[in-house]
């Protein structure tokens, strides 16, 4: 029996150690440091909630939080509508289904940093070139103001992640029993009726999964933000993750940056726990 205990610990020690050192310890230390004047190496005294109080008056942090929330709402709606649309399209037995699936999913494999640079080219050069050609004023000056920076980020994210949401919906669509659809065909149901009354209720769980995936992803986005707008103009398109990185490694305010990181953790954890709650509830309902 001793031997069994020994091998158990032997097998889990490497991962346990790495998790403790890489994730748990920094989280605990960081929370502790956020109540001090830590400079990245040492600290001299405790400052209580001073860092957190400062947060309340930090216009840039509030603007980043608000921008992130708006971004999350816009991308969740668009991603789910388009992701589901693409899933329905490629599962409707087209000749081009397979190649379309490949094409839609491809942007997912490429890093957000690289994709952001490609889209910077498209928004800045291609949009203005096409705008001049066909005489649409609205295509000029993209990414140079907050509005177009916002929609630029949304378009990039939707283009990148729709294929991912698509394959989640495909997985659920494949669980829709064919007999049901055939029976509906015999009864003379239209495409829309079949979708509304049979398909949609059966893929609703996929909606919960992808909604929370997109929600927590939207909050954690950094690379796309960095490469597409770099927060500009005047930090008006800066999102939460970038605000934390800038505070810590740009302005070298480690303790203050960490207090933002703690708030960020709480927000993301609440989102994820809500998801777990809904998933559990759904399983009970079934």
């Amino acid at each position, binding site marked *: 029996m001793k*031997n069994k205990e020994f*091998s158990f610990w032997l*097998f*889990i020690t*490497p*991962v*346990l150690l*790495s*998790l403790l*050192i*890489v994730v*748990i310890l*920094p*989280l605990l*230390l*960081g929370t502790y*440091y956020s109540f001090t004047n830590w400079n990245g*190496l040492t600290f001299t005294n405790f400052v209580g909630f001073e860092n957190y109080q400062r947060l309340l008056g930090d216009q840039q942090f509030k603007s980043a939080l608000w921008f992130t929330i708006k971004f999350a709402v816009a991308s969740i709606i668009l991603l789910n509508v388009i992701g589901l649309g693409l899933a329905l399209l490629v599962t409707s037995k*087209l*000749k*081009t*289904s397979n190649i*379309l699936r490949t*094409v*839609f999913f*491809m942007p997912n*494999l490429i*890093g*957000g*940093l*690289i*994709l952001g*640079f*490609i889209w910077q*080219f*498209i928004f800045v*050069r*291609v949009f203005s070139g*096409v705008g001049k050609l066909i005489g649409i004023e609205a295509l000029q000056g993209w990414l140079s103001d907050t509005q177009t920076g916002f929609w630029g980020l949304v378009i990039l994210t939707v283009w990148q992640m729709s294929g991912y949401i698509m*394959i*989640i919906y*495909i*997985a659920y669509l494949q669980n829709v029993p064919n007999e049901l659809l055939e029976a509906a065909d015999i009864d003379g149901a239209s495409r829309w009726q079949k979708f509304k009354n049979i398909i949609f209720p059966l893929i609703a769980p996929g909606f919960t*999964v992808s909604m929370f995936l997109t929600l927590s992803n939207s*909050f*954690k986005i*950094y*690379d796309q933000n*960095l*490469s597409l707008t770099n927060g500009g103009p005047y930090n008006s398109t800066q999102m939460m993750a970038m605000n*934390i990185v800038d505070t*810590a*490694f740009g302005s070298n305010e*480690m303790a203050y940056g*960490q207090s933002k*990181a703690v708030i*960020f*953790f709480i927000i*993301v954890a609440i989102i*994820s726990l809500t998801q777990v709650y809904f998933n559990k509830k759904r399983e009970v309902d079934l």
Partner: protein
Amino acid sequence: MKKKKRANIILEIIGILIGLIWISPFYLMLVNSFKTPKGIFTDVLAPPAEMTYDNYQKAFVELDFVKSLFNSLVITVVSVLVIVLFSSLAGYALARNKSRLSATILLIFVAAMLIPFQSVMIPLVSIFGMADMLNKVGLIFMYLGFGCSLSIFLYHGAMTGISSTLDEAAIIDGASKLQIFWKIIFPLLKPISVTVAILNTIWIWNDYLLPSLVLDSNSETIPIKMFYFFGQYTKQWHLALAGLTIAIIPVIIFYFSAQKQIVAGVTEGAVK
């Protein structure tokens, strides 16, 4: 029936149109990467009037592509192997041990998935800096810490399908725990190992923020080099686009060589 056929043709056309829109960014990147600055200025949509390969030559050198590709490959491959090996061991141990302690440890790993990277990165960099571990080895260890949770979760789930009578039979034959794992269990876990490897490869290969905080200029990966390169040539699109094309090629090769497994793996990682 005729009406249905027409509806199908319309759907085909819609599908092709959306597909074209979807790949247009790659098309625009590719055609403009072969143009001169003047060529991009005159017509941004058309294929290049006169092809130039100078952009690629320069981008290849400036990106120090052979070296950054090598760095990316070493870091990704070693990290993924380490994650697959240690997570499968742990998933096996946690699944076979039915104690409350074992269940608690699994719960800790699963709960750790809720912690976003940005909320621990500042102390993490400080701790590893003090230990003088801001290098490739330190980075690989960090990837194990961040990657093991989801991987253990997936392995643990897969273990429920592998009967423990296999272990018992092997014990009677005198095999050690490590032998049982390596000779019997690990081969049976191969499908889930493929999933774990793919998910971690995509993440680590493309990761920018963590390596940018950890690595020195001698071990920079493709995304880090790309970031500097782009900053340097930000208004010189002909060079930037050639660099981006070069940076994407390894991913495209990976995608087309293992497309089925990648899509299946990503689906599994998301739905679970």
